[in-house]
């Protein structure tokens, strides 16, 4: 069933969970990638392997100071949102 028929499908929820909870995390991306070994063909066809690899490589290549900076930026960004909307 696609989103055109009924909103809030399982696929969409899974997709957003995968993007926000798995790929954002360092260790989570690694654990997920290692788990794909058990279902190689599926994982590759669904692009899980590629996306996990991309996410891990991106984190490795991000220089540590930049991570800290973006983290503080993110926090101040959230504070701003908090002030404005909540």
């Amino acid at each position, binding site marked *: 069933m696609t989103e055109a028929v009924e909103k809030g499908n399982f696929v969409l929820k899974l997709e957003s969970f995968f993007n926000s909870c798995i790929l954002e*995390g*360092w*260790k989570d991306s*690694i654990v997920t*990638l*290692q788990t*794909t*070994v058990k279902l190689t063909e599926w994982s590759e066809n669904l692009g899980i*392997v590629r996306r996990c*690899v*991309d996410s*891990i*490589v991106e*984190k*490795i*290549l991000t220089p*540590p100071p930049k*991570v800290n900076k973006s*983290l503080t930026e993110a*926090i101040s960004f959230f504070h701003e949102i908090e002030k404005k909307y909540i």
Partner: protein
Amino acid sequence: MQVTWSYTYTRKGFSKQQQSVPKDWWTEDISDLDIDLFRCIIIAIKSTYMLPPQLIGEALHVYACRWLPDATKITPPESSVSQTDDVAENHRKIIEIIVTMIPADKGSVSVGFLLRLLSIASHLGASTVTKTELIRRSSLQLEEATVSDLLFPTHSSSNQHYYDIDLVAAVLDSFLLLWRRTSPAPIENSQSMRSIRKIGKLIDTYLQVVARDINLPVSKVLSVAEALPDIARKDHDDLYKGINIYLKVKNYMQHVLNII
């Protein structure tokens, strides 16, 4: 707000007081991955040219330490037979893939690591391509080697002696082949002269250690000693010392045998 880093950094020599994140913070975590997935990550990183080759080399080193058997431990023939074929096959696959990923830059990995890999590859019966590549890479950095880097146990059950002198001979031959080609007529105090003298000293010191091995055939010791060109030795003191040790050990053993 408290941020906890998810990476684990448990290796020796890491000071907890270190404020900044170490450059190799990621190496240990990705070592949990299967070799094929690990290869995907390393190849992707290498293709960006964003990280220094030494850092890639360090990642390979961490992975090898995690998955490959310890080269310095002697495996008695019984245990290598009982070791399942699957495990050995997997080890062979890992070492062969690791070797293909070593960055081409000289010094991206240490010579000690290369020699340890060579010893493991020889023990596991890895492909000739893998062994040849390791011999070639080790010989390019042989000058940096210490005697302890060269001392690895032989794994062949047919050999009665302890140290694997054949591998050292192979690396030395590879070194000399290149050295002869690049320096046909070395002059005193030139780089190539300093280089061969250093190797001469290294090999003679090595021979002093292996000379204590009673079962080592004299022909093997001689062939390594004779492989070096004359100019590799300023004097022959170290070589004589080695021969002396060898004779003393042989004499002593003969003496013991006579008493029995």
